[in-house]
């Protein structure tokens, strides 16, 4: 339990709900009360569903009391990024451009699966406009800030789902990742984020950014908690043409088996240049921890690092340009500056350029597959800096310190987890596995988090607020 009395993890809360020391109503209420105290400056929520959440929490308590147990998410409060449809209210994608009727009265498949697993949906969380543009104070939406330092960027675009977990508003957040939107806020807010294999979690009922890249995944305090959420939301869905027709693996059993003997490739090239000493030290200490846990480590490089990063941006802008073509032409100034600049840059990319990006994608996938014949896992820093000030979050220099884009075209699963602090702000590492090897990934995350306590350090919101 933390000083607020909230359990820190789904794993702990789930046990407490079953041994009678906690009720879902108590836990949900405390999270919402905490949001009452702090969300005016933190900006995690776009909308809160107090009434329906407390009703569902009461129902969960009653169900558990009579032995009707839906699994580890039963009675657990969860926030959902506001690009997912939820029947309680409108979906905005944090944009005045999206048709208010979009998804009205419906649930995204992921949301309906969370409900079926007994989760308590406490509200919609802040993002960047259409999961790409930076928030602007002039727009009618909260501007999310970092729970560790309010002047700093919380990361995006799953900003509120990440900051809300760090703040103790809910125990897990649902996010999406097209260029790093789960892993970046996980790193900057000091929580754990899971990017599942492409196709494992359906996007049905999710506002798209880039059709061939978008992925959905959880943010929580631990790898185990992320696994519990993924277990509930993974699986085929006919509404998503890229949904993979395989049942999800059993992610929780075997998560304690450790990583002794696992072959882990350590990436430093292109990732640490110009990083401050504390960033390098935290990464090297994390590598040492993996070694102490019995992994066999050796240095490696990522094939086509700069080329694939470029291919990712070309693909995102092109696909987003197609989706927004009609509205961007008519309502340019209604979009935020960041969103319209990036999506509008699709005008500079030809059809041949887009196809060439997909060819580079294919080459890189093949070469990375060859690399994964040598390694079970690869590790890199998620971001080689702590959270930058809000106004500097998109500077070119800071952009070069985000190491997430490379992976988005590849489709491999990744786990982003906290590894330390610099200047009082969290730092993160990302671990990649072969497609569909989530069990290996989560074993590594679990082992690392049993050996370290970075993921258990939470911001003192009263101090951050000042």
């Amino acid at each position, binding site marked *: 339990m933390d000083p607020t009395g909230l359990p820190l993890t789904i794993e702990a809360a789930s046990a407490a709900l079953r041994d009678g020391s906690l009720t879902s109503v108590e836990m949900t209420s405390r999270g919402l009360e905490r949001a009452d105290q702090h969300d005016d400056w933190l900006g995690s929520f776009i909308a809160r569903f107090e009434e329906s959440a407390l009703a569902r929490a009461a129902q969960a308590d009653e169900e558990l009391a009579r032995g009707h147990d839906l699994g580890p998410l039963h009675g657990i409060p969860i926030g959902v990024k506001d690009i997912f449809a939820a029947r309680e209210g409108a979906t905005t994608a944090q944009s005045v451009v999206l048709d208010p009727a979009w998804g009205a009265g419906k649930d995204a498949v992921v949301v309906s699966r969370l409900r079926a697993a007994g989760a308590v949906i406490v509200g919609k969380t802040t993002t960047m406009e259409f999961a790409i543009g930076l928030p602007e104070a002039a727009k009618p939406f909260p501007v999310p800030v970092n729970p560790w330092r309010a002047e700093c960027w919380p990361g995006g675009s799953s900003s509120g789902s990440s900051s809300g977990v760090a703040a103790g508003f809910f125990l897990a957040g649902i996010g999406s990742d097209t260029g790093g939107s789960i892993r970046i806020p996980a790193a900057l807010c000091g929580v754990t984020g899971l990017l599942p294999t492409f196709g494992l979690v359906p996007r049905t009922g999710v506002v798209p950014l880039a059709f*061939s890249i978008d992925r959905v995944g959880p943010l929580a305090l631990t790898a185990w908690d992320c696994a519990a959420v993924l277990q509930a939301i993974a699986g085929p869905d006919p509404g998503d043409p890229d949904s993979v027709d395989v049942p999800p693996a059993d992610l929780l059993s075997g998560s304690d088996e450790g990583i002794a003997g696992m072959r882990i490739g350590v990436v430093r090239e292109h990732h640490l240049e110009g990083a401050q000493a504390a960033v390098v030290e935290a990464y090297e200490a994390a590598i040492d921890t993996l070694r102490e846990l019995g992994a066999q480590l050796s240095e490696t490089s990522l094939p086509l690092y700069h080329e694939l990063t470029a291919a990712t941006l070309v693909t995102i*802008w092109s696909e987003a340009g197609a989706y927004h073509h009609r509205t961007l032409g008519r309502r*340019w100034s209604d979009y935020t500056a960041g969103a319209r600049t*990036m999506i509008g840059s699709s005008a500079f990319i030809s059809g041949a350029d887009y196809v060439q990006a997909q*060819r580079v994608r294919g080459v890189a996938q093949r070469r990375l597959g060859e690399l994964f014949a040598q390694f079970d896992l690869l590790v890199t820093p998620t971001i080689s800096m702590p959270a930058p000030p809000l106004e500097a979050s998109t500077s070119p220099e800071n952009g070069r310190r985000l190491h997430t884009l490379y992976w*988005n075209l590849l489709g491999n699963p990744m786990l982003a987890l906290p590894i330390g602090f610099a200047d009082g702000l969290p730092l993160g590492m990302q671990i990649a596995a072969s497609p569909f090897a989530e069990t290996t990934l989560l074993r590594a995350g679990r082992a690392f988090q049993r050996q370290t306590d970075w993921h258990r350090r939470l911001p003192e919101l009263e101090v951050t607020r000042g």
Partner: protein
Amino acid sequence: VDEDRAVVQGLLHRAGLEVPEPDISAMIQSYGATGKMIELLYAVDEAGEEWPALRFTAVRRAAN
């Protein structure tokens, strides 16, 4: 710079985007950055890479 401005305005117009003047300098900057990224993509071709068959999904649906 004037040449870039004319090219950028032409491409935006062709894409159906009416971009107001205050945003044009940001779009010129992005035009330059996008051009550099595209050069990187074709540099892979020049290296003589053996291209795999084109596909548009992130992972093979081998299990289907």
